[in-house]
């Protein structure tokens, strides 16, 4: 099954197919009361064939629009954030990117003490894990409260990816808890993210 050659323009509410024949992808939704897939965005309809190893043989129908929508953090998504404030039990951060895309609105995240690392969570010192201005890679745990999303760095590949030393230089990771200033050689404590190999 090949992808549709000629894209058809659709608007929200237009029928894209039956749930028995197609799966709803981006820009589409399935109405359970009548088992119909509808468009939820204005754009061009595309049918993506199922993966060869997939057990579900239904193609995915999606609507791609004329302009990109700003991403919104959702539970399970990996975000890049800048630490703004560090407190005894938590650190606040402004989310800058969701996956590979930069956000167009300001979203605030909170990294709680118990979400900094996976082991010895009660011994975590927030001031030795993050500093204001650090760029961190984190996972969105949940929507949190009305003010902020709850973020976690409790994985090897999550944590500080870029930090400035007191001297103003970008520090180099030395271990998973230390970063070193290339100018002064001074070592500072951080919860360092493992570099992608």
């Amino acid at each position, binding site marked *: 099954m090949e992808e549709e050659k000629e894209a058809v323009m659709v*608007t*929200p*509410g237009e029928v894209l197919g*039956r749930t028995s024949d197609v799966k709803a992808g981006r820009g589409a939704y399935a109405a359970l009361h009548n088992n119909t897939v509808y468009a939820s*965005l204005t754009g061009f309809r595309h049918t993506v064939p199922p993966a060869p190893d997939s057990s579900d043989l239904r193609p995915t129908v999606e609507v791609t629009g004329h302009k*990109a929508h700003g991403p919104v953090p959702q539970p399970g998504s990996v975000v890049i954030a800048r630490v703004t404030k560090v407190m005894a039990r938590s650190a606040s951060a402004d989310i800058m990117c969701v996956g590979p895309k930069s956000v*167009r*609105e300001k*979203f605030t995240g909170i990294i709680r003490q118990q979400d900094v690392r996976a082991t010895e969570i009660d011994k975590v010192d927030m001031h030795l894990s993050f500093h204001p201005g650090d760029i961190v890679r984190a996972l969105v745990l949940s929507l949190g409260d*009305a003010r902020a999303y709850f973020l976690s760095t409790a994985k090897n590949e999550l944590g500080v990816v870029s930090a400035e030393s007191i001297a103003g230089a970008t520090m180099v990771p030395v271990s998973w808890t230390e970063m070193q200033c290339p100018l002064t050689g001074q070592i500072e404590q951080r919860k360092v993210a493992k570099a992608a190999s």
Partner: protein
Amino acid sequence: METDRPDSQTPNQLRPLACSCSCSILHRSHGSASWAQRETKVLAAVYGPKAGTKKNENPKKASIKVIWKPKTGQIGKVEKEYEMILKRTLESICIRTIYPNTTTLVIVQIVHDDGVLLPCAINAACVALVDARIPLKHLVVAICCSITDSGCIILDPTKDQEEKMKAFINLVFPNTIVSVLPEGSLQEGSETMAHGIMTSITQGAMS
């Protein structure tokens, strides 16, 4: 039953539409639209989704906030009512579970009012949401009908006509296959039909 109307319009005829939907109308908004029905003109702008919802809103769903800006002066009771109607109408067409704990702001600026203001604002807001790529269940179309003292029904009245009417009604329909009559068949081909009127606001004595 004939009724005199300007520009030799028939009672069941809409005024010419001049709808423009483009990001270039307002550069800093995420979606914007200008909707004009002859002399009535409304500008709508959408900002969001932004993080967080108000205390009394459900954080598991996206919230919509509507701000109505009149052409002149402060907003009064009527404008507050329009805000509430618009908010409820837009909430019913948006898929609010996609971006939970976020707020989408819709600002409606009245440029000129020559009748059918609320339907014009609903149409403008819907087009602005489409332009902002907010996921919608379906599109909506709003119209206004009015009833004269003689019992004649006029579609899309002007401001002068509105003031002389015994009553008028604003109706909002979705763009899905609908059955307005309850006794109508709820099946058309393979698609299930929905009951058609989403929002209905009446003013005056309808009988």
